[in-house]
């Protein structure tokens, strides 16, 4: 295993699935759904998920074989930045407005991914303008305006 990678073992995946299904059965369904018929299917699915998780864990422990998923730290940094920028964009769009936020989003994301200023500025102006005009003028649909637009 390279030092530049971090590893997620298969056992963690099934462990997470098992914990999630236990939470569903004992916490989320009892608090989130009124008792009676509406609980039937969420319970059936959660129990099925629990069974798959537990059987898979037992199988891993018996076989002593677990697949590993590698995440390169340097590469994950770029993906992480992209996710963070997209997260901020998704959340703030309704408060700031689609047009302005899309310009900022394209500019910041392209720069963080290593693109030059020229293409970043060009795309950040052209794309939101085209989408904005298409949706508002042609399709008569409106985007979240926010404090700007």
């Amino acid at each position, binding site marked *: 295993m390279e030092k530049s990678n971090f590893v997620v073992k298969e056992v963690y*995946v099934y462990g997470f699935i098992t914990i999630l299904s236990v939470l569903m059965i004992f916490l989320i369904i009892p608090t989130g759904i009124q008792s009676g018929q509406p609980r039937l299917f969420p319970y059936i699915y959660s129990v099925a998920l629990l069974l798959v*998780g537990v059987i898979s864990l037992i199988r891993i422990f018996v076989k002593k074989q677990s697949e590993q998923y590698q995440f390169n730290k340097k590469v994950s940094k770029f993906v992480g930045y992209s996710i963070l920028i997209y997260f901020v964009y998704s959340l703030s769009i309704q408060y700031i407005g689609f047009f302005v936020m899309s310009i900022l989003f394209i500019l910041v994301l392209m720069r963080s991914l290593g693109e030059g200023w020229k293409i970043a500025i060009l795309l950040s102006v052209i794309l939101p303008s085209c989408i904005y005009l298409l949706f508002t003028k042609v399709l008569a649909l409106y985007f979240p305006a926010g404090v700007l637009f």
Partner: protein
Amino acid sequence: MFSQIFDGFVTMFTPLTILLTTAGVIAGTLLGAIPGLTATMGIALILPVTFYLDPIAGIVMLTAMYKGGLFGGSVSAIMFNAPGTPAAAATAMDGYSLKRKGYPRKAIRTALVASTIGDMMANLVLIFSAAAIASLALKFGPAEYTSLVLFALILIITVSGGSMAKGIISVIIGLMIATIGADPETAIPRLNFGFLELSGGISIIALVIGLLAVSEVFTTIEQYFTSRHNKSNSTDLEDDSSGSDVPKGNDNITLKEISGMKRTLFRSSAIGTAIGALPGLGPVTASFVSYTQARKKAKNPENFGKGEQEGIAAAEGANSAVASANLIPLLSLGIPGDAEAALIFGALIMHGIIPGPQILEHNGSIVYGIMAGMLMASIICFILNWYGSTIYRKISFIRPTVLAPIILVLCVAGTYGYSQAAFDIVLVFVFGIMGYLLNKVKIPLVGIIIGFVLGPKLEESVRQVLSLSGGNITMLFTKPISLLFLAISFFLIINAIRKSLKSDNKNDLDLPVS
């Protein structure tokens, strides 16, 4: 039926439909030709737009995009040995070798001819068989539907490849997401976590755009930086020139060559149609099964993998036939066979057309219009790609760092344009991250989408069975059609377990213990 087919062809043939079909083919081919991007993502992106279009024009555009995308995937497979779609992996085996011998255009046009023949044949089967299957499906009651949905889910789990446990997890996640919103019988809120916006359930648009498009953007960014990190980025492919200089005139497919491959073309189309008609098997399975069969039957099997035209034809004919054939279970039974069919299912629902046995009765001319449009899409795909076969390689060099922001902004615009709900933009983000992480740990995303689509039907049918039989589930075993589906499902499970145990035993001998 024939009058409905005629009506469908007449209704479909409008300038708008022709224009949108052409646009769909071009967009699908471009997306399919970019390794890492797929037409599925394109369909997810334009799905909301179809809401504002006539149902025939909108849905034909989606299927045109799918057909274009399948062919586009073969272009990058042939040119760079980088299949633009997983279905094109079998095409790459001989396509890339033929290209390296100096026959790129011959390879692309062989793929195109096979693709068009496979697609047309499956289209015709779809047109003439959908009504027969639908009339059989009219005999279905809640017990038959329950068994059918269970069969479809089990089929998807057992054939999705990789770990069976992960296939089950994927389908259950989809089924669980489908329970969010309100109880179908009592309308009592379920699992809305205090968000009023979740009371109506999760929007299929937010789910598919997030899971398929957004997650794919992050995966593509990761692949791009990984290849840069490994100093083997895609620009290396640009330098990968043909092995020899072949005169342009020789780099073409001839009628004699097509005639020589007629058995392979017919067999691959038949395999693709049969596999496409079963939910969950998809174009990847079809292309590899067909390729293996073609090699078995070939006079010179040793040429396969070294640029054999029949190898390209076998893979392409089968994977393209799936594109049409997977609409057979969707339209006649309401069971989507793969992610693309699930997206088309979503588009039909958006227009108030409910896929299932009564679809032809209630919306016959629209459905036959869509089928007619699919035939037209095949023809347009052939004409455009025949002449455009020399210019596709350029688009494969668009950097993911330029494409990523474009696609993410389009995802937001498409989602908001459809639902006009800012909450759905956040949902797209959540499903995007979920899809990216699940992809990393090899949990198939298609199972989630199909589980989500079939979940309400399963719940409704099971609860109807329970009401009708006073809580006695044995009704499922007393109806012959229901029993048949359950028996096949049981056989599939046993077969999958047997295969899994066999592979475990093999791994015990082969793999190092971690």
